[in-house]
């Protein structure tokens, strides 16, 4: 067997016995993402689905000044509850979080309504608090609806058609498909997968230089009648293998997780069946060479395993950058963007999840662009490995 193969097999065997590698490659990356995802989705599902059905408790000061309004609110699934004594106490109660919101109806409310001048209602709330913000939005919606009803009643009383208040009739026609809507949510998956992939090979990438050096096994290794290229290529390929394994596991674990998330309730149908999983694997796997060589390269500049880990945790974030920029700029996939590794994988994956047909040119550019970048970085790693200063 060639020296490269020998190095590859030894690295695989060595790392399969290393708890640190196993933990990050087989557990951390593949499980962390989906579990976090499932948790977040379930939580937000509970919030958004739960809120509409459940009555909202609203403390109201001065209920007696607006009996009609109170009746209206009660009939719209809002429970009127005991309020603090006065406005100052209400502000205090909202500040301390005792109440999420308090309505204050002034004494002159009824008189103002009768005179047809705007009658003031105060909604005291802390909009920096997400729950309070959501609840006060619900209360405001009810108040606005009441406002609208009163206005219409007044117009009719004056013999004016309420239609004059609606010069425009705005209709939104939503053509999004359930799988398209799910892409909004599942779009962030590509980062999870790239993260899992990189985590899987991290320890191997460090081991090639900083790890071997720290253990004192680098010098005897370099004394062997094997070229340094063979050593570093064997190590990088072994890192690729672990990255591919980690990617595969995280795709599978995500596939399983999705079976337990009721995304249909959000009007989404995730298009993440077995064929998509297989395609996603082949779209993402070219990234392993780039990831392994990038991590090896960064680690080769460090003095110790610890230092390498610190730097590589920055590298773990690197693939987010293009994804983030593009999702802020809302760019559509085009051939030029396919040249950017991590971004191209992200866009292709989003396309897959939206159930759009794969653009073969895009796939070709993405795969070859990512592979070429990986090969270049691998060659740079090999060059650095030939340096005399390698031993430190």
């Amino acid at each position, binding site marked *: *067997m060639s*020296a490269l193969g*020998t*190095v590859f097999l*030894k690295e695989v*065997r*060595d*790392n399969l*016995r*290393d708890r640190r590698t196993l933990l990050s490659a087989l557990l951390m990356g593949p499980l962390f993402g989906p579990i976090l995802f499932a948790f977040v989705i379930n939580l937000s599902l509970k919030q958004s689905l739960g809120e509409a059905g459940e009555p909202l408790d609203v403390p109201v000061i001065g209920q007696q000044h607006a009996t009609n309004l109170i009746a209206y609110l009660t009939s719209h699934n809002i429970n009127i509850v005991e309020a603090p004594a006065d406005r100052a106490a209400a502000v205090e109660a909202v500040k301390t979080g005792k109440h999420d919101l308090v309505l204050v109806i002034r004494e002159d409310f009824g008189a103002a309504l009768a005179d047809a001048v705007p009658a003031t209602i105060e909604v005291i709330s802390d909009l920096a608090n997400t729950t309070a913000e959501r609840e006060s939005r619900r209360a405001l919606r009810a108040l606005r609806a009441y406002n609208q009803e009163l206005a219409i009643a007044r117009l009719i009383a004056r013999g004016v058609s309420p239609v004059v208040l609606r010069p425009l009739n705005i209709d939104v026609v939503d053509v999004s498909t359930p799988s398209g809507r799910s892409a909004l949510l599942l779009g962030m998956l590509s980062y999870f997968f790239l993260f899992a992939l990189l985590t899987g090979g991290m320890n191997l990438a460090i081991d090639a230089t900083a790890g*071997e050096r720290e*253990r*004192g*096994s*680098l*010098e*005897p290794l*370099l*004394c*062997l*009648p*094997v*070229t340094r290229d063979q050593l570093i290529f064997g190590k990088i390929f072994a890192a690729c293998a672990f990255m591919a394994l980690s990617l595969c596991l995280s795709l599978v674990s995500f596939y399983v997780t999705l079976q337990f998330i009721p995304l249909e309730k959000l009007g989404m149908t995730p298009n993440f069946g077995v064929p998509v999983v297989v395609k996603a694997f082949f779209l993402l796997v070219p990234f392993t060479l780039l990831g392994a060589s990038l991590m090896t390269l960064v680690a080769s500049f460090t003095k110790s395993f610890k230092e390498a880990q610190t730097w590589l945790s920055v590298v773990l974030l690197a693939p987010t950058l293009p994804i983030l920029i593009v999702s802020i700029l809302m760019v559509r996939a085009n051939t030029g963007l396919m040249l950017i590794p991590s971004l191209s994988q992200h866009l292709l994956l989003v396309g897959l999840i939206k159930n759009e047909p794969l653009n073969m040119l895009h796939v070709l550019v993405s795969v070859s662009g990512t592979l070429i970048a990986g090969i270049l970085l691998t060659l740079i790693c090999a060059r650095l490995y030939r340096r*005399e200063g390698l*031993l430190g």
Partner: protein
Amino acid sequence: MISVNGLRKSFGEVKAVDGVSFDARDGCITGLLGPNGAGKSTTLRILYTVLKPDAGQARIDGIDVVSDDLEARSRIGTLPHSSGLYPHLTARENIAYYARLYGVPSEQLDGRVEQMIEQLEIADFADRRTKGFSQGQRTKVALARALVHEPQNIILDEPSNGLDVMATRSLRTLIRGLKAAGKCVLFSSHVMQEVAALCDEIVIIAEGRVAIHDSPEGIREKTGCDDLEDAFVKAIHSPGAQ
């Protein structure tokens, strides 16, 4: 056979090796002796090709270490100063890994590894992972993997570092055995007694130069000191005494 001629190597301003020349013959134990920082390790590192000399030549069995480093390396068994093992592999797997990379044919591989395990008395812990091995056990495994391809030349950089009395004794026995088998053994040390106990030839290095190169008796004669330690002290204070 190792021959070194006019070797020079600087790291920035520091001249680590400044014109070192000597021969280490087959069937002979040559000791490279010198205080810390004298240039012993740098010389050895050039010989096993992890460093390139600025000037001068070094040959292993007549093969130049710069122009044909792969061939040169295949003729050496090396125990560098730091000889870490792979902690997740057993002693046997560590040795077998090196045997494969040295190009030992696969049909001979198991036999050769087994032979090294016997020769170095590793059998008791051969199938344990090397994590947690004592320094003595580690040195034995490192030696076994360095010798597994039966090299003609053996380079050992301070091999007795951190070894206890018994381990040092068995190391000496091994080195004498290699000599008896007609191998060329070159090892460095800063411990006079060790060199005196083993070597046929002593090369004393100080400040990157060869201060003296002779047999132990020759050195006693040249320096006029009966005690080798005195001779060593005298030699390193008068570089070029040769």
